[in-house]
């Protein structure tokens, strides 16, 4: 750990274990505005459980669960992120400059996750209220059982998008390979256009909100139906 400016702290993970970084981030961060994580080299659990309005820059690729359970912090990953980036985030923002692996933003309750590249399988699985904006494509089974929140996909979505959706709403610009059980296309309203425009602006991505399609739950699985023959 070294102070490279009065209000910024540098952790070089080539020299310092992740444990020390996280312990520091869980302590009193008064006066600390920015934490820079050097040589992350795909380490797991970088900047997990942060509960402070601090900026964290991960200067490279992160492993599993980067910024997991984040509250308030603004975390930027300059490279790619492994599985479960920003899992169960409560608030704050997490930005992945590269690609994100599987289960990005899994069960996140709040805050904004931006993935500038593509996201893997199950992006936004069990989403509980957070917003996710993906600059590229999302993999199969994205938004599986997503309960609340919004997902904007600027590229294409792979198979079974939105399977068993609850109240979360999905917006896709490109092609949707297939929808999952109980997901359906719905007409875009003015409210949807402004929501997409607002999320794109927050993510800093330039697309025309009018080119997005809306996917939401048909709500046929909300109640047990014996005649469905388990076709879902």
């Amino acid at each position, binding site marked *: 750990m070294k102070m490279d400016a009065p209000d910024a702290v540098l952790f070089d993970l080539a020299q310092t274990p*992740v*444990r020390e970084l*996280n*312990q520091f981030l*869980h302590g009193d961060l008064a006066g600390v505005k920015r934490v820079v994580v050097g040589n992350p080299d795909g380490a*797991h*659990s970088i900047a*997990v*459980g942060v*509960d402070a309005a601090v900026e964290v820059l991960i200067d490279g690729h992160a*492993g*599993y*669960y980067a910024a*997991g*359970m984040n*509250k308030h912090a603004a975390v930027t990953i300059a490279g790619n992120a492994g*599985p*479960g980036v920003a*899992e*169960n985030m*409560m608030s704050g923002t997490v930005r992945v400059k590269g690609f994100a692996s599987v*289960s990005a933003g*899994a*069960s996140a*309750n709040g805050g904004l996750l931006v993935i500038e590249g593509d996201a893997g399988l*199950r992006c936004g*699985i*069990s989403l*509980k*209220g957070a917003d996710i904006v993906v600059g590229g494509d999302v993999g199969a089974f994205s938004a*599986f*059982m997503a*309960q*609340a929140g919004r997902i904007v996909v600027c590229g294409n979505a792979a198979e079974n998008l939105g399977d068993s959706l*609850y*109240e979360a709403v999905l917006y896709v610009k490109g092609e949707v390979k297939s929808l999952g059980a109980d997901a359906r296309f719905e007409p875009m309203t003015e409210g949807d256009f402004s929501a997409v425009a607002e999320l794109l602006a927050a993510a800093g991505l330039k697309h025309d909100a009018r080119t997005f399609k809306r996917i939401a739950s048909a709500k046929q699985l*909300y*109640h*047990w139906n*014996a*005649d469905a023959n388990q076709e879902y």
Partner: protein
Amino acid sequence: MKINDIPVHTVGREQSATFDRKTIDYIQHASASGLYEIRGLGAKRALPHFDDLLFLGASLSRYPLEGYREKCSSKTVLGTRFAKNPVELEMPITIAGMSFGALSANVKEALGRAATAAGTSTTTGDGGMTEEERRSSKTLVYQCLPSRYGFNPDDVRRADAIEVVIGQGAKPGGGGMLLGQKINPRVAKMRVLPEGVDQRSAARHPDWTGPDDLTIKIIELREITDWRIPIYVKIGATRVFNDVKLAVHSGADVVVVDGMQGGTAATQTTFIENVGIPTLAAVRQAVDALEDLNMKGRVQLVVSGGIRTGADVAKALALGADAVSIGQGILFSLGCNADTYVQGGRHISAIDDYARLGTAPGYCHHCHTGQCPTGVTTQDPLLEKRLEPDVGAQRVRNYLKTMNMELTTIARACGKQNVHHLEREDLVALTVEAAAMAGVPLAGTSWIPGRN
């Protein structure tokens, strides 16, 4: 009586063993409704269980302890492998995870108070942590389940241990189920779900797949909690020997093994009765796995699924468990399946309410309906008042204390100053099946089927 008259009740009315009344009822119900049965609690079929084991008390070859004068410790420590603050309990009997949603907030509070008074822990469930249970519980285990309902970092930080739930004995391989009638506004808000929907929670965790991922997930939870608190891993009993080994390799401090008699708030009857293995078989396989890895004592084993009495606890400990966990026994203690409920010190009959559910005390398993006649497994604002937290807390405390006294009684009789000194050598089995599963000799012989 004429010579040609035949007594019809022996020949003319023979019930089929294959198609007995129960089976015929099942077929006719399925035919009428096109639905499988969903119910609460655990396996009802007869299974080899702790009843099939007996203790060999002290005699000439072993020296007993004085029952009322000599100390017998029941102190229990869980999570000594990695946690800075292991869970320290006065007894090896803990309260199992049961969700707020399945149970009312009053019940969760009563359980916290009872556990605290008895010096043991209680556990959240698939619905998050309520203020009532955190406030009332000295030691609270916070479950991390596939659904992640209500799961959040603030509660992670204020938990005394985290239990990553892979499965439960009533339904290994199955997710959760909470029918719409139990999703009231508060439950819905905690789970971020619309009110009144039938909620089926996932069978798989959203952010990890398999034991290699679980290893990394456990480290994430340790990092979030600064390695302070123990991480338990709970599995439903199936391939216990392999699963316990994988849980240990994944970095668990404590492994919880739940046998098929373990309860559920709602699952298909066919799942409850036909998937999983009995607790008795599971304990021995779990202990074998820990011994095989030379981790016995370093990773603690908690056993659950049909633990009812101090004798059951003693037998589980003698087989090698470090503690037990109880769910259904606690519900019965609170008044589940009782004839009456208590209001202001008066017993009031609940018989008519059982009848409205098509059942009677002693048979009820209608937890899934939310219409619990004694106010235990309900979210109904009127029914939940039938369980007064004071009454519930006192009953559960009494039950826990009774079991612990029974446990120490047996331990003393076997000559142990500490309940954790009970050992396999103190046990024999009454049946060949129990002897084979538990790996102890058939009573009166030195024969352990399959082992010698």
